[in-house]
């Protein structure tokens, strides 16, 4: 990898140059500036990664370059130059003309970034129409050429497709085709792979890198994932709370970070651990949970008029879980891992198969009888924002469940306060409301809520996926500590193999409702047996298996 230092002397030749940029936030926000006094250069023909956690100001920077900031947020000082043009001083119409022609942008969520009412082709053609390029037939031909270039199947059919027919990865390819339509010199990619599955992410990263090399384009790539940085970056800018804390060549920043924040960030990136955990319980113990041939099928559409759609969400799944152990369930979206989690807690009923919990089959148990067992099986949810009632105090959230099961309020309150301390919050949190807490703190509340019942089994469904890496590392540590203290068993559902390797004794890889491979992390990562697992492991950004 080439790493060119961003020296001020190189400014005149930079494809994109940011100089002392400050963007202010409206009054009443957490801080006065979205970004403050940041400077960096994007060297022509390079990929510059801007990395930072949520709220670091990386997206604001991208939108400022495009002139797409909302009206309430404005650039207060500094200069943005694209090539030789100072975009702060040009007319709105000139800026409009530059967008898509000289600077293009692709966004994070390909599901919402395309107009649902226009065909893929029409949306690509629109870029050319808006800049008065070509005749209608030339534009069409160019659009099909672009669809071919980004590797979409049957480009001429694809041209007439509507976005809803495409998968997430395909839509992101369409976005890239659109961005490339007029051969811009700078491409800004704002977390373009964050919403994608890991195998799709690997493909899109490769596509962006290939195209960048082929066209010698300059790419500013925003991400929160150091794995992604390691895959594609030539140089790196690290941002924290609106300021740049470190910048330099990719190798240098990744291997020898100088700023403490960078060091901390790199340290908290989950890595695949090829070593297995020391199990907390003997392998001869009686399993606490025994799942046998579990099946769940979703049906949609009408059976009467044909066209019934049948999805095998969970297809003949079996496993055992020993007390105090953690089973990781890993898979991509649609693999059935979340359905499995919901089945285990009887949040929905299975079609057939057994779930034997402490010797009793709960799958066939009627709801009234299962209610007494429910406290023993608890869930930690993914979204720490949506899973706490904003109108209840933390105290109410924690105590309402036990009280419903007959625990006296005073006892529940004492338990709750002790648990808050255990999950790393102070007891004063008891009387406060969820909005007063950060995402990581809320997830701690979610964990405390699940622990209120002294459960035997915890199902954690993507419980750390919505969190920044540094917070993620803390929560994983917390879960580990809790398991050591309470001996609870865990089913840890995640799409992230790296995370799974941190915390699990055993990993089950799911694909299309089936468990395709099961084993200790060391075997899954270092010596995967099934082709699908191999593909998953290979797709993990920034990791060379076995290293």
């Amino acid at each position: 990898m080439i790493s060119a230092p961003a020296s001020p002397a190189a400014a005149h030749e930079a494809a994109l140059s940011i100089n002392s940029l400050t963007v202010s936030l409206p009054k009443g926000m957490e801080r006065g500036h979205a970004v403050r006094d940041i400077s960096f250069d994007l060297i022509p023909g390079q990929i510059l990664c801007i990395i930072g956690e949520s709220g670091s100001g990386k997206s604001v920077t991208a939108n400022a370059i495009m002139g797409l900031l909302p009206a309430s947020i404005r650039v207060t000082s500094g200069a943005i130059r694209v090539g030789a043009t100072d975009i702060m001083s040009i007319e709105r119409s000139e800026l409009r003309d530059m967008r898509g022609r000289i600077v293009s942008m692709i966004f994070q969520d390909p599901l919402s970034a395309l107009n649902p009412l226009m065909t893929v082709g029409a949306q690509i053609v629109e870029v050319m129409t808006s800049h008065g390029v070509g005749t209608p037939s030339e534009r069409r031909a160019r659009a099909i050429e672009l669809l071919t270039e980004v590797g979409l199947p049957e480009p001429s059919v694809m041209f007439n497709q509507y976005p809803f027919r495409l998968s997430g990865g395909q839509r992101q390819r369409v976005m890239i085709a659109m961005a490339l339509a007029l051969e811009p010199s700078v491409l800004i990619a704002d977390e373009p792979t964050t919403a994608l599955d890991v195998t799709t992410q690997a493909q899109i990263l490769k596509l962006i890198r290939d195209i960048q090399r082929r066209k010698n384009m300059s790419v500013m790539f925003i991400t929160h994932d150091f794995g992604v940085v390691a895959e594609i970056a030539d140089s790196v800018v690290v941002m924290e709370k609106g300021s740049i804390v470190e910048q330099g060549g990719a190798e240098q920043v990744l291997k020898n970070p100088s700023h403490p924040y960078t060091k901390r960030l790199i340290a908290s990136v989950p890595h695949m651990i090829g070593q297995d955990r020391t199990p907390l319980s003997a392998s001869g113990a009686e399993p606490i949970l025994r799942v046998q041939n579990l099946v769940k099928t979703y049906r949609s559409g009408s059976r009467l008029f044909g066209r019934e759609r049948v999805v095998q969400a969970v297809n003949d799944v079996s496993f055992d879980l020993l007390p105090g152990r953690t089973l990781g369930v890993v898979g991509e979206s649609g693999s059935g891992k979340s359905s499995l989690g919901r089945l285990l807690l009887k949040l929905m009923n299975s079609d057939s198969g057994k779930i034997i919990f402490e010797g009793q089959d709960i799958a066939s148990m009627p709801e009234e009888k299962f209610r007494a067992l429910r406290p023993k099986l608890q869930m930690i949810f993914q979204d720490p924002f949506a899973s706490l009632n904003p109108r209840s105090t933390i105290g109410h959230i924690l105590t309402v469940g036990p009280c419903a099961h007959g625990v006296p309020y005073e006892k529940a309150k004492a338990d709750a306060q002790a648990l808050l301390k255990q999950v790393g919050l102070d007891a004063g949190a008891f009387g406060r409301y969820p909005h007063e807490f950060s995402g990581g703190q809320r997830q701690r509340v979610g964990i405390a809520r699940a622990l209120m019942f002294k459960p035997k089994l915890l199902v954690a469904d993507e419980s750390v996926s919505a969190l920044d890496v540094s917070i993620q590392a803390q929560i994983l540590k917390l879960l580990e500590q809790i398991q050591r203290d309470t001996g609870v068993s865990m089913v840890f559902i995640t799409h992230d193999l790296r995370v799974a390797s941190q915390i699990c004794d055993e990993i089950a890889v799911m694909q299309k409702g089936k468990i395709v491979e099961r084993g200790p992390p060391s075997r899954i990562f270092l010596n995967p047996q099934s082709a699908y697992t191999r593909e998953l492991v290979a797709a993990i950004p920034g990791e060379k298996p076995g290293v």
Partner: protein
Amino acid sequence: MFVFLLNRLWQSVILLIIVSIIGFTILNMIPGGPLSQYALDPGMTAADLERLKEQMGLNRPLPIQYLDWAWRMAGGDWGTSYRDGQPVTAVIGRHIFATLILMGSSMAISMALGTWIGIRGATHRYSIFDYTATVGAMVALSIPTFWFGLVGIYIFSLQLGWLPAGNMYTIGNETVLGYLQHLILPSLVLSLVHVAVWSRYMRTATLDVINQEFVRTARAKGVPEKRVLMKHVVGNALLPMITLAGMQLPQLLGGALVTETVFTWPGMGRLFLDSLGYSDYPVVMGLLMLSAILTLLGNLIADIVVSMVDPRIRLS
């Protein structure tokens, strides 16, 4: 699509039957009964009334009367008005045109104006225009229509003398211009409320779309602002409005009770009120069924239009 239509048709028929049973029952629960108008005539004896009942089949049990009515209805015979002995369909036919031009013109005005105000209110959110439109809509919605009607008549008819105070035309001057003159005031008064409602919905629908990511994508592509607004924002914002427009269909032919009364407009709203007053059950039932059919039809048409416009529905 065919299956979908067949299903909807089937559901509609059941709904119509339920509506008609409820309507028929409630109507016959009203004290006085269908012959109350005749009973007021001092020349009528009890024997006369019995004979009338016999003649009109009103002495039969209610379910039999209903089945008889429903059977004829299904065959296209909507019955005869008690008031003037004319077929119900003819009575409705005489009034439907008046309502159609009144409601048609007022809805055209309110949809056009409301859509524009709604979009502008959303794109210029929290501007003076937006605040004025919001307050204006609230005022229009909270003041009853008859008040606007009376004030309109007072100013434009009595004080200024520009427009006629009521009726659909002046006898002896049945020109298009004459009709138009009579139409302006009631149509505008009716529009006031509809503009208010329509603009609020449109504003919300536009705001829902305006912050969506595909709108930002369009801007990032360098699409001119005007096209971003018309093609990407409004195109998507109009989708929910189609359903809303479909729900206006029964009103289009059902008429506006209050406005028609204030302006002595010979439309369906007044026909309904008058028929109720005269206990003209066949006409009341006819109007009830008509509005039920139109409601179902309006929804159906809206669903079909939405499914034609929205590829996510059309192709799945």
